[in-house]
Structures are given as C-alpha cells and as structure tokens.
C-alpha cells in the first residue's frame, strides 16, 4: 500500500513539471532511419523533450510520436535547417517546429498522393482489363452471363474502392482496420471466398444433374437394346430359365437362346 502511494506520488512529481524537466536531444544523422536520425531521436525522446537539429535537411517519415509526445524540433534557423516529411504530410505541424523550414512533402502531392495515384491508375487499368476479358469471354460464349455478372460486380467493387479512397478509409475505420490496404485485402478475400463457394455449389448441382443424365442414358440404352431383341427382356422369365437350367444341369448360355 505504501509503495503504491509512493509510486503514485513519484508519477505525479514526474508528470507535473514535465516541461521543466524536459531534456534536449540532438539528431546527428541526416538519414531517414537509423541511429541519430530525426525519427530515431524522437523515439528516444520523452514527453516534452526538445530535439535540436544542425544545418541541412532532415527527413522525417512518421510524425505521430512527435505529436503525441509534444516534442519540439529546434533548428539552427529558418532556411538553414529544414524538415522534409517523407511519409505524407500532416504529422509535422508548424507548432512543433522552431527555427526550421518544413519542406513540402517529398512525394509532391502534399496529400501524400503520388503512390496512391500510381496505385489507382494501376487498379483502374487492371480492373478495365478484367472487364474486357470478361466481355470477350461472354462474346465468345465461353462464359455464361450469370457468372460474368458475378465477376463484373466483384471487379466493379474493386474499381470503386481503388478510386474512391475516402470510401475505403471509411470502410477500414468501420472494420477497425488501421491500414486501408489491408481492408481491401480482407474484402477481396471475402469476395473470392464467396465466389469459390458459389462454384462449389454449382459443381455439386452439375454433378447431380450429370448423374441423372448418365442414369437416364443408361436406362434408355438398355431399353433400346431390349426393344431390338439384343438382350433378355426386362421381365424375361428368369424362373423358367432356372427351371431349364436345372434340367440341363448347368447354366444356360445366352448364345443358346439366340
């Protein structure tokens, strides 16, 4: 009990004058990652700490920790030191940066769009290719419309999600998935699973139908042969045959009858 109070007191003591106790660290590397890099230094820093930078450009991928710990980045002067966001912009807010320039995000778009745009183009092209393939298969009568529609619906869903990324974010949020890309994978897997299940159902039905067909053709073939008199008739007197057999003391061969 005493210990517990003791540690609580200590925690309060530490937390209250956090800014007063704040340390100053220094990033020594201009690399994006690794020891001494800005990112690494932020990770080492405690809440409220200040990170000093020398001259030049310092890349920073994730600004999350910076915000969460309310660290301050202090450069050697505006225009002398610069911070380059490389992981998509907003994390490095001007409020946390003194005496340094925040460069426009390395990947251009400010919204961190370049990679996503590429992905989008790829997704759109891919989906279009799939659509064309499906249409061509339908045109050649290699694919029944029902399944074509199924696949096109799946393709369309992918297309929509790859263009309308906000929607994907919403869905990812709703699913509790942090990374929208994972959400789309999960969705795609689910859709593929359902499609395959659907085909198993279709295959089962087909096998039942072919079974009936095989039974029917076999029956018809038998009836046809019977009608032609090639084989013993269905209700042929097997009793008589056996009686005859008993007389002859052996099996009567079909050839004998013919």
């Amino acid at each position, binding site marked *: 009990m005493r210990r517990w109070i003791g540690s609580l007191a200590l925690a309060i003591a530490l937390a209250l004058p956090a800014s007063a106790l704040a340390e100053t660290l220094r990033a020594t590397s201009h690399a994006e990652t690794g020891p001494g890099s800005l990112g690494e230094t932020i990770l080492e820093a405690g809440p409220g700490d200040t990170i000093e930078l020398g001259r030049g450009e310092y890349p920073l991928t994730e600004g999350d920790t910076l915000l969460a710990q309310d660290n301050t980045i202090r450069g050697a002067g505006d225009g002398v030191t610069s911070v380059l966001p490389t992981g998509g912009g907003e994390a490095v807010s001007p409020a946390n940066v003194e005496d340094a320039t925040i460069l426009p995000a390395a990947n251009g778009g400010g919204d961190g769009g370049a990679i996503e745009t590429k992905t989008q183009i790829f997704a759109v092209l891919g989906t279009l290719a799939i659509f064309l393939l499906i249409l061509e298969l339908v045109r050649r009568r290699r694919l029944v419309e029902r399944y074509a529609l199924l696949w096109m619906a799946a393709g369309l869903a992918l297309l929509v999600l790859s263009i309308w990324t906000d929607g994907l974010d919403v869905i990812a949020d709703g699913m509790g998935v942090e990374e929208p890309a994972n959400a789309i994978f999960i969705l795609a897997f689910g859709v593929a699973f359902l499609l395959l299940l659907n085909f198993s159902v279709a295959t089962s039905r087909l096998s039942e139908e072919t079974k009936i067909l*095989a039974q*029917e053709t*076999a*029956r018809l073939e038998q009836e046809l042969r019977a009608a032609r008199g090639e084989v013993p008739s269905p209700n*042929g007197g*097997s009793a008589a045959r056996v009686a005859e057999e008993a007389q002859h003391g052996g099996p009567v061969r079909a050839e004998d009858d013919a």
Partner: protein
Amino acid sequence: MSTNTEELKKLAIVPAYNEAGMVGRVVRDVLREAPDFDVLVIDDGSTDSTSAEAEAEGAVVIRHPYNLGIGGAVQSGYKYALRQGYDVAVQVDGDGQHKPEYLPELLRALHTEGDEADMVYGSRFRGDPGYKVPLGRRLGNLVFSVVLSALTRQRITDPTSGFRMTNRRGIELFARDYPHDYPEVEALLMLHAHHLRIHEVQVRMNARGFGRSSIDYPRSAYYMAKVLLALFVGLFRRRPTPVEATGEDEPRVEPPATSAQALAHGDRARG
C-alpha cells in the same frame, strides 16, 4: 397385404464395377437360390467384360456411360425397379460378398412380420460374421452403429451392410433420392426420416471376392467424416413428404410425352 410373396415382382439389383469373373457367378447364384427374382446388373462404367458376362448369365444389364459410384449405381437400380413396377428390390453386391441363399429369408422377414418392415437388411454383426472383418472396418461400423441406433431409436448393428431388401415404399424413396458415395448409412437415416421401418436379419457374408473394396485405408477417414456430416446435416434437413402421402405411383422420371415437349420446346428456342 398378402404374404403370398410369389405373386410379387421381385428384382435383385447388382451394382458391379469391373467385376468380370465374379459378377457372372453372382447372377447365377441369385437365379439359383431365388429363382423368382429378376436380376438387374448395373454396370457402373466398367472397362472389362462385366456387362457381357452378366448378360450371358441372363441378367438385364444397365450400362452407365461412366463410373457414377456405388450410390448412383444402386439408385439406377431402384429407378429401374420403380419404372418396371417391381414390388420388392434387393441389393446384392457384384463382388460376391452377399450370399444369395439369404434372399428367401430376407423376403420372409420383409413380409411375414405383419408387414412391419419396409426394409430388411442382412447384418454381419448380430452374431458371428463368418469371416474376419478388418479391425478398422469394425471400429468404423461400431461408431456408425452407435450413432445410428441413437438417431433411429432402434438397434442397428451393421449400418454399412449393403445387403438390403425393400418394398415398394423403399423403392420409391430411393429412386427419388439416394446418397452419393458411401450411401448405406445415410440411406438408413433417410428410411427412418420417412417413417419406413427397418428390420435386421442375421447373415454371414463372404470376405470380399477380389478387386475393389469400396473403402481402403486412406479413404476411411474421409468416409467417416463424410457419413457423420451427412448424418448430422440429415437431422436438420426437411425431408419431402413421406412417400405414401404423395400418392405418386408413377416414377418421377419424365414420361415420354414430357420429354417430347421438352425437345419441341428446345427446338423452338433454338430455331
């Protein structure tokens, strides 16, 4: 109903898949031991002389264009029995495992018990099976036996036995619906679900002649799982109305008129 079984039309259904050298003997034995039975051999896509051999012994032969498996073969036989108006049908394996000398006894059980039984089957495990049943098979049988006995609330000692004789109601049921592979156990549950009564007769069987055993080792796990799943699902399946309630005497298979219509229709659709 009459116990005069001589007036009844009786059919022995012999499913056979590559049983040349054996099936002829089975047909001959059935005709000798039970002369009032017609014999129908279902040649389930054999690549040997099974059908020729069976025909030579005087059996009617239905030749499947390819192998449908035991379920499809047996059902083919029941469909034939239904169409040809048979009153009694019995399954006799084409591999010589079932002894035709029990046919009269099965027939008696089917009809002399005050028509209590719609299906009578020969059980190996009511007494001494007469040959050494492999351990794995015995164990599997025990599991099915326990489960099925609980489900049907009657003692079923040999649920995997395919040596079964049924009356018109059973023929109608099986012609309409029969399980695919490893059908025996599931078929029993179907009978029970349709309130058809099952009766056991103690028989001895031959060890399988030669060739195929429908269950070899790697498949037995699948067999167990498949049948148990089928039993479980069967509990939740709504069976169609019991056979006697449908009043359907004619086979469900399309009568010729309908087929002709279908053809005409197809022509029109095409033209």
